[in-house]
């Protein structure tokens, strides 16, 4: 009797622990070319086999991020032999994906715009082992997500209570850097113009400020004779 009650209590606690959505945490990395490049490489390795970022054409990565064409071909292109001028789309067809995961993995180009970087970062860090799920995985932020924890080999495996039950290839801190880089990469894909905007912004602003100042001086010169 007592054992059964205890089990029930534990189950309730477990459900509560699982039901509690974790607070959103911002990725601990800076938004810059170096981080985006690292994120692109991790993304190609762990995410691109299922998720497309179809609006990002491979060749824009050479212009935006400073990758060489060969680096794009060797490190990012998946499947190898895709076209440089075409978008980053995996070979996995939506039909196969639906058969495997229940839903087709969404295109992630605009995901960071839709949900925000903090959501993506928190989501990727909220996976836990759940034997009741068909994939064996569940997610604290997005309960019953169809996606398995593909990053488990590097970040390790957590149980429902958040305890590490199997260590990954990297330390938790290193793994957070990787997940942060992937998040920043997705922030870049959601608005690649951000890099260019930040480059051109100071010139544009400086110019219009100068214009305003000169126009103000001109105004003052004319308005001297208005009493």
């Amino acid at each position, binding site marked *: 009797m007592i054992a059964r009650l205890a089990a029930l209590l534990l189950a309730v606690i477990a459900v509560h622990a699982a039901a509690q959505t974790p607070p959103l945490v911002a990725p601990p990395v800076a938004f810059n070319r170096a981080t985006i490049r690292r994120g692109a490489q991790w993304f190609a390795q762990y995410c691109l086999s299922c998720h497309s970022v179809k609006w*990002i054409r491979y060749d824009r990565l050479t212009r935006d991020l400073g990758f060489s064409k060969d680096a794009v071909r060797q490190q990012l292109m998946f499947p190898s032999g895709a076209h440089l001028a075409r978008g980053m789309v995996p070979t996995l067809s939506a039909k196969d994906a639906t058969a495997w995961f229940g839903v087709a993995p969404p295109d992630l180009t605009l995901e960071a715009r839709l949900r925000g970087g903090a959501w993506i970062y928190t989501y990727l860090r909220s996976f836990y082992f759940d034997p009741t799920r068909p994939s064996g995985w569940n997610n604290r932020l997005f309960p019953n997500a169809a996606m398995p924890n593909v990053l488990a080999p590097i970040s390790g495996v957590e149980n429902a209570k958040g305890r590490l039950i199997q260590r990954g290839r990297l330390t938790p801190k290193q793994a957070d850097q990787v997940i942060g880089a992937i998040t920043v990469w997705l922030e870049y894909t959601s608005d690649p113009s951000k890099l260019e905007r930040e480059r*051109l*912004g100071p010139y544009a*602003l400086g110019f219009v400020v100068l*214009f305003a100042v000169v126009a103000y001086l*001109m105004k003052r010169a004319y308005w001297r004779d208005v009493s």
Partner: protein
Amino acid sequence: MGRLTAWVDRRFPFSVLVRTSMTEYYAPKNFNFWYFFGSLALLVFATQIISGILLLAHYQPSAKAAFNSVQSIMYDVKWGWLVRYIHTTGASLFFVVIYLHMLRGYLYGSFKRPRELLWLIGVALYVCLMGEAYFGYVLPFGNMSYWGGQVITSIIAAIPYVGGWLASVLRGSFGVGTPTLTRFVAFHAVLLPALLAVLILTHLLALHEVGSNNPDGVEIREHLDARGQPVDGIPFHPYYTVKDMFGVGVFLVVFCAIVFYAPTFHGLFIETYNFSPANPLKTPPEITPAWYLAPYYAMLRAVPNKAVGIGILFAAIIAPFLLPWLDHNPVKSSRYRPVYRWMVIVFVLTLVALGWIGMQPAIPALLPPARILLALYFLFFLSLPIVSRLEPTRPVPERISAS
């Protein structure tokens, strides 16, 4: 140059137009901050036309292709992001500028005799601008576009007798889809811009006929010098052209700061849920209107009856048209009407608060404040005929006071 002007002048009243509308159009010399926004509205209108034409060069009005063609502008078109951000920023700043321009009218009584028609044309311009913004809002066909399109056409459908037909004409289909987009492009890119252009021209003609009001609300044309020109007037050109240039400069600083550093303006200028394609089966979790229409949306939600709510909505839009005939006080400027001045301040705060509520999720806790604010909005218009007759006024100077 002189010969060319002479050649043109024999065939077209070029010099006459320049004289009557610029170099010899006398404007009061005491224009302040609030008088920048007329010319800035003109600047934004031109910006929207140019950036809009360039967007139209890539946009594809169909339920299948619209969202993708907009993404293609963002990702594939050279400088496409710049063109689109100019257009989205311009759309929101158009309303900022127009709201400040209208507030100026409230503050200094610019709707009063002899400027009633000028005011009516102006409010008509504002209503057209709301339509223009709405049609443009639907075009990218993200999920907010889709549901915004649904909600507004449903409001139209609730108009008694003609509503159903009107909504079907707007949608061109059972729901919001390709036929809706094709006609919305026609309205957004041809009909309403043309209408706006004609109204702007009429607005300017009416302005130049009656002359500009000013912060003191006194008529400068009542005191003429020996040459028959207003003593307290200065030629629009060069004095106000150079002053407006400075205004343009400051405006462009704000404009560039937004385009380059905050183009979505935290979801206010480009809505977050519009980054997912239209989905007829899934309403976004928080469906909120564009900020510039949010006060009306809050009013609509505050009323627990569909027909009455829509009636209130139309009444709220029509009320400003009646302003010239609601205000009976011969004193124009709020500078000399302390009670009226406070009414305008409360009115503006009411609108800001209603706008804030309109952008919050529809939760019951916000209903009582929304209803109070709704009452306050109409109280401004309803109390004006009485207040304007009874309020104490300060002595109005005979002429513009030296600043």
